[in-house]
């Protein structure tokens, strides 16, 4: 196990093996998303209060979950990179940030679209869940801007890792905001088991599908990040020259 992890942390080894995992994540992920979406739109019964508008959760919940999970991946990778100085960890953090920002945007946009018919407003500034999720989007932007502003990769890794760790405080705030404060946003539904099985199963399928698709996208982005960081090394030169030779 340790030998496998040690090998995986080696940039050339990771670059070689990552593409083998991508189809195993992307294909089942897309199939699950396709079926979960179909079941959520056409098979799940209508909610007695929200009517058909509740079907937005089949996009909103997976994207909101991924926005937080991606942040945790980013923060843990940043911490591992800072403590053990594993180069691949910083590459993972850097590659995860844009994906996290996109899923946070999707969670905010779909939440806002759902809020219009349900709450009568697109946005409510006083709501802690909405505001803390928006802060997370700004933290993602700040992380990416900080990385882009520093040319030296090592310095950029360290500075952005500190920001990622500080910003991790926001994750439990988002999660527990509906418990700690009065919020328009509904409380935990899935964890409490308050959903009907016919509604819950498509949601769980979509969460699993989105996670697998995210995994495939992250692997591809990390691979590119590794290539960029190692662009001056011998193995990258050999890789490009051998590819040209074959072409």
């Amino acid at each position, binding site marked *: 196990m340790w030998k496998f992890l040690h090998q995986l942390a080696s940039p050339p080894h990771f670059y070689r093996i990552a593409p083998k995992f991508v189809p195993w994540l992307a294909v089942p992920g897309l199939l699950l998303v396709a079926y979960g979406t179909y079941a959520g739109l056409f098979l799940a019964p209508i909610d007695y209060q929200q009517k058909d508008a509740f079907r937005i959760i089949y996009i909103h919940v997976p994207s909101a979950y991924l926005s937080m999970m991606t942040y945790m991946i980013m923060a843990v990778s940043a911490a591992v990179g800072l403590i053990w100085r594993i180069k691949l960890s910083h590459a993972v953090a850097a590659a995860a940030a*844009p994906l996290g920002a996109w899923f946070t945007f999707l969670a905010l946009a779909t939440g806002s679209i759902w809020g*219009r018919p349900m709450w009568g407003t697109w946005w409510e500034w006083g709501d802690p869940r909405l505001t803390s999720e928006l802060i997370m989007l700004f933290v993602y932007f700040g992380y990416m801007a900080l990385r882009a502003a520093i040319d030296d990769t090592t310095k950029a890794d360290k500075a952005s890792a500190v920001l990622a760790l500080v910003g991790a405080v926001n994750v439990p705030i988002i999660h527990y905001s509906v418990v700690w404060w009065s919020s328009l946003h509904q409380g935990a539904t899935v964890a409490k088991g308050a959903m009907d099985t016919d509604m819950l199963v498509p949601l769980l399928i979509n969460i699993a599908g989105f996670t697998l698709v995210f995994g495939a996208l992250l692997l591809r982005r990390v691979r590119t990040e590794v290539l960029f960081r190692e662009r001056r090394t011998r193995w990258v030169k050999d890789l490009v020259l051998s590819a040209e030779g074959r072409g």
Partner: protein
Amino acid sequence: MDKISMGGYGVYVWSCFALAVVVLVICDWRARLRQRRVYRDIEVRIKALGDHE
């Protein structure tokens, strides 16, 4: 037709699903674009070094 209008909520529901497709396509497209750019930059750099030598 009823499945499309969804009792007046169709525009909200369908726009969310369309937005999700757009976001996933953009994520995939940007990942491919960056991969191509990084690879091409390395090729150009190696070629320039080769010419210089």
